[in-house]
């Protein structure tokens, strides 16, 4: 896949602009110094380095970018943003790309797919209780990723040590949190 030529023709891509709208970050400013990649604590696990992602955004390689593991493995630690000599908040670009992938229902592959499932499971518990609930999140993650007994032993140990609880903690204004989620869904549909 990597050896396919990049074709630049009249079909100009708006990827750079879309990223700009989402993140308020102008990726065209990147001059490929590689400092973001050099400092990224997750780069070792990524399929594309952060500066390659920036370059691909410049070139409009939307499929490569949105299908990459990198945008989901990014921990949003923001080391890159702090270090970028062009003042680009690279982490915000990553975040925007994650959102753009989600909007297009691109699930990602391998590890990055699981990251997606985990994020969703986490958000679902938030939606239910207004606060995260580890046990349910773990359960949902295991079921949705077809590995029901994944980390079960570790979970039991944590339960015995009182680190996780079966009964969820609920915030008082659960409904208000739910309302936030609904509003986001409405906005998405409207957009």
């Amino acid at each position, binding site marked *: 896949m*990597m050896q396919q030529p*990049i074709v*630049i*023709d*009249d079909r100009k891509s708006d990827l750079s602009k879309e990223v700009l709208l989402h993140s308020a970050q102008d990726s065209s400013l990147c*001059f490929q110094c590689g400092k973001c990649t050099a400092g990224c604590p997750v780069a070792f696990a990524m399929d594309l380095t952060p500066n390659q992602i920036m370059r*691909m955004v410049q070139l409009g390689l939307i499929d490569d970018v949105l299908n990459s593991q990198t945008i989901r493995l990014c921990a949003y630690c923001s080391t890159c943003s702090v270090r970028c000599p062009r003042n680009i908040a690279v982490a915000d670009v990553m975040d925007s790309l994650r959102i753009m992938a989600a909007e297009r229902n691109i699930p990602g592959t391998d590890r990055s797919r699981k990251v997606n499932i985990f994020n969703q499971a986490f958000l679902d518990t938030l939606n239910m209780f207004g606060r995260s609930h580890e046990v349910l999140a773990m359960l949902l993650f295991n079921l949705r990723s077809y590995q029901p007994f994944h980390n079960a032993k570790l979970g039991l140990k944590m339960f015995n040590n009182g680190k996780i609880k079966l009964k969820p903690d609920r915030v008082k204004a659960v409904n208000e949190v739910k309302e936030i989620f609904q509003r986001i869904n409405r906005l998405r549909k409207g957009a």
Partner: protein
Amino acid sequence: MQRIGVFICWCGSNIGGVVDVPAVAREAAKFHGVVYSAEYKYMCSEPGQEMIVSAIKEHRLTGVVVASCSPALHEITFRKNIARAGLNPYMLEMANIREQCSWVHQHEPEKATKKAIDLVRRAVAKAGKLEPLFESTIPVTKKALIIGGGIAGIQAALDIADAGNEVVIIEREPTIGGKMVLLDKTFPTLDCSACISTPKMVSAAQHPNIKIYTYAEVEEVKGYIGNFSVVVKQKARSVNSKCTGCGTCWAKCPTKNIPNEFDLGMSMRKAIYIPFPQAVPNRPVIDRERCRQFVKGKCGVCKKFCPTDAIDYEQGDEFVTENVGAILVATGYDLIDWAKIYGEYGYGKYPDVITGLHFERMVNASGPTGGKIVRPSDGEQPKTVVFVKCVGSRDEAKAREYCSRACCMYTAKHAHQVLEKIPGSQVVIFYIDVRCAGKAYEEFYLKTLHEGAIYTRGRVSKIYPEGNRLIVKGADTLLGRPVEVVADMVVLATAMIPAEGSADVARTVGFTVDKDGFFQEAHPKLRPVETNTGGVFLAGACQGPKDIPDTVAQASGAAAKIIGLLSHSEIAGEPTIARVNEAMCSGCLACREICPYRAIEPKEIVERLPGKQVTRVVASVNSGLCQGCGACTVACRPGALNLKGFTNEQLLSEVDALCL
């Protein structure tokens, strides 16, 4: 018999910390001819110098040896110093016991002391053979001649003339202005090139101290610093000085469709023409190869219509001699003929593959397209424009090894112009490096990036047509992937090379060129506007690829040097030059071939032999031209040539002192 005084310097601990200075002084006192020997902490200081002066007087010294640092640092100091005591300044010999001894032998003081003694012995031996030398005085003609009327030549001319000196400009084209008048806007400020250069052209033309020869070349240069005699060839213009530039002739001239060189062939001119409306001087020339009067022998239209009777078909080349004190070469650059070299870019077969200079003419509002960027093939506005940098530069295999320095910046400028003038356009720039080292240059490049130019790191390997478009194949080496661009037009940033005929200029004037054919400066850092030939200076792109700010800075620098030279009514000639012993000279003139400064000329002498008189040829050294390099002394088989201050006898005495 010489009476030599030796003065050994400690240079603080620089020498004294390693070399046993008092021991050296004691030894020196024993050398042949030495009548006085002393040491001191800092010989170059005021008390140190006083010590030398009083010793010369007290001990009636005839020669002085100072053992201290390098003569490069203080030879002049000590020469002046002994002159104060009434000695000829050239009766000084130095021994370098710092750079050549204490500094390099810090960890072996005993050996260093021994070596210092040897070095002093050598110096004393030479001092015994020294003879007084006298500087000659050379009168200076207060006039400068500038070859090349580009921005470099014009700027220098204005500076030199404003300082009150006469200036002559020799320009081979029909107008002055050089490449700068071809340009549209100039980076990094994007001010209009003509708006800032044509007023300078006019000021030069109107300056009372400046005389301009256009359509002229330098035929011959004789003489030396302060006294050059230059023969200028004024090519036949076929239009005399009565011309008022009214324009009737080229309006009436019946020829047409002759490609105008000024627009790189993108517009047409007549056989009688001025290159562009703001040409200076505003006087046409007849292109005799295209003029019907010359080709067919009949026409005479321009002559008939000229209201001032300025047309002169009979005019021939004229030769004028100008006597000047300094010469500035500012012949600029040309662009490499890429079409001959780059088959992969189509050998110039595809009309929509153009150079940066074509692009400049195109975006220029007074250019052939009135400022519209269009494809040469069909006149359509391009949507996707590709720029290829370093074409012919940084390419040892095919063309030139060096970087042309201006193209990174003008490509950023061109990219900006495309994006600004053509809405919805797309620009892809293939580069190896982006080199924007200059004040406000990086900012300019970043602005172009921000405007959306797609910089792609990689060199284009092929351009080929597909339909009426061009496919440009390159790579994005940052992603490690091939890139293909479907382009409407490709602009090549081609290498700057020395202007055509540069080598002839260097030969005629008499100075050296570097490995790439650019003019060689005397020192890359410390003497950037001088050549190795006294009185000959250089400025602008003829010395190496350069943009306008650097060109103008160098031109003003060269002007300052020339103003300095012309401010003297006479200058001192170095006495350390070659001398011919005519009695020994066999007249073979091997030396003439060797001399890089063309300082050796044949001379006839009359000799009285028993019973008859014979005339024979011997070598003679032109004291103005000789730079004292000594090459001729090696070439001379009978040993008739000697460099004053470094004679064979003096050098051999040094060798004996060290080796025997």
